[in-house]
């Protein structure tokens, strides 16, 4: 093991102390109100000053995103070059794509009477031009043109399709393709055993999202098939199977041919048609898989990777709990749809 990697692993072991422990999570879950929830959160590593304390769940989400990005950047700063580059792409580029989609959505329906605010994830652009300049573009055409000099230049290929279908998914497909291309590049720089871990997660996430997109298409537009590049990346669930799914094949039959993990993740879709629970299962699977890999190699890349997955899962759980407390959602429901990392671990 290189000295750089050893140093990063030791730092990551130290950073594990920043993760919330099960007792804190229990207290957070038991909080009666949002204020009580924030009081408990203020006694943890997420403490804020009284004047910067998030007053709403939306503000809390922004704050937790900030904390996550700061932690990610800390890890990137002390990780070896090839791992740092991978982490930046795997975690930050996804956030950047989310931001780009948020800008596109805002430009997509500018004339609507809805009062809206744009909440961007507080991440500096990695490959796109500054968000401020993208926001200045009055139209989607202008937005796509502004992305021309960046790695998202292929988004322009989705513009005609977006107009033809009067939908945003073609642009999202091309943005995600840019992520896949870039991610494949940086993954190849990792050690072979590390590559397996990351590819497994990437494949599972992509396949599950493809299945959800296919089922969503089937629900509304069953009479016409999607264009060929609707599923640019598909792994264990092949594009042919996805088309069969759209045409009416049973999801249970399709997942039977894949593997046990997919059956477990997609089970709520088969039995309850519950997309959110599928997403929750996927998140839990990624978390558990990363943790399992760490237990097999706690002094290498899996240790760094699983820490970031844990931070991200914890952030998502805290956002969900915060929103749930604000809206007074029952604890039973909150726990059903939230992955509490340390509790599972």
């Amino acid at each position, binding site marked *: 093991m290189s000295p750089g990697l050893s140093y990063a692993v030791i730092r990551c072991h130290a950073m594990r102390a920043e993760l919330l422990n099960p007792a804190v999570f229990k207290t957070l879950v038991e909080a009666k109100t949002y204020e009580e929830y924030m009081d408990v959160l203020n006694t943890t590593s997420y403490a804020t000053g009284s004047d910067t304390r998030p007053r709403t*769940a*939306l503000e809390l*989400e*922004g704050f937790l995103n900030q904390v996550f990005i700061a932690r990610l950047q800390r890890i990137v700063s002390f990780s070896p070059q090839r791992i740092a580059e991978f982490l930046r792409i795997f975690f930050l580029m996804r956030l950047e794509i*989310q931001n780009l*989609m*948020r800008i*596109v*959505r*805002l430009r*997509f*329906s500018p*004339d*609507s*009477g*809805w009062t*809206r*605010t*744009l*909440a961007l*994830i507080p991440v500096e652009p990695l490959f796109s031009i500054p968000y401020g300049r993208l926001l200045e573009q009055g139209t989607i055409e202008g937005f796509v043109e502004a992305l021309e000099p960046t790695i998202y230049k292929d988004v322009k290929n989705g513009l005609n399709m977006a107009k033809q*279908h*009067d*939908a*945003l*998914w073609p642009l999202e497909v091309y943005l995600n393709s840019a992520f896949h291309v870039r991610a494949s590049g940086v993954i190849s720089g990792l050690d072979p055993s590390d590559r397996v871990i990351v590819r497994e997660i990437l494949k599972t996430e992509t396949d599950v999202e493809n299945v*959800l*997109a296919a*089922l*969503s298409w089937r*629900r*509304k*537009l069953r009479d016409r098939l999607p264009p060929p590049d609707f599923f640019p990346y598909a792994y264990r669930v092949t594009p042919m199977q996805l088309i069969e799914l759209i045409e009416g094949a049973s999801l249970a039959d399709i997942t039977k041919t894949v593997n046990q993990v997919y059956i477990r993740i997609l089970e709520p879709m088969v039995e309850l*048609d*519950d*997309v*959110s*629970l599928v*997403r*929750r299962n996927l998140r839990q699977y990624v978390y558990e898989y990363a943790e399992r890999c760490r237990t097999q190699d706690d002094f290498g890349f899996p240790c760094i990777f699983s820490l970031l997955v844990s931070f991200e899962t914890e952030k*998502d759980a805290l*956002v*969900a709990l915060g*929103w*749930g407390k604000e*809206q007074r*959602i029952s604890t039973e*429901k*909150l726990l059903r*749809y*939230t992955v509490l990392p340390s509790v599972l671990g």
Partner: protein
Amino acid sequence: MSVLSGVRPTKGYLLEMQKRLSFIQRGCEFLKLKRDHLAKELTVSLDVLRGRRDTINEKLKQVYDEIVTAYLVLGPSEVRSQTSSVRDGYQIDVLPKSVMGVRYPSISVISRAKVEGRLDPALSKTASLMAEIFEDVLRLAEFEARAERVADELGKTNRKVNALENVVIPSYSQVIKFIQDKLDEESLEELVRTKLIGGAAARRRE
């Protein structure tokens, strides 16, 4: 003040009163018909409303549950961003309609919101469910407004019928009876007087 104060016990006044009473009784019959029709309309509406409300409440609960789970999984800012991409929201027109002279608002949908291809699968399902029941909610609102106004009108009509049956018609009947009694009394007096005069004249001739 008595209903009989100011009554002129004349033949002409009696005819006028009888004409009025007959007109009021005809009006009362019409009002009773209207009352029965409105009551029937209201009973049917309430039965339908009860059923529809329960169904819609059930569906709304389901939509709310879906929205909550979408928020929990996607996060509030992402849900907010996704929903902002839905353009061309519902456009409705509200025009007045009438049943038995009772005006109520009638809602017609001019254009529907387009959500296909804009939302995450979790939200897309919620939006489809909401779109399914949105027009039912509009119909329910229209039906409730109609039932409310029919009930209001039924109350008014009932009060009018009761007032006519229990107050106006009896008072007119009382006046007519009073005039008739007076006129009968007067004609009897007249007859007696004629007889007496006739008797006196006969005696004088003898």
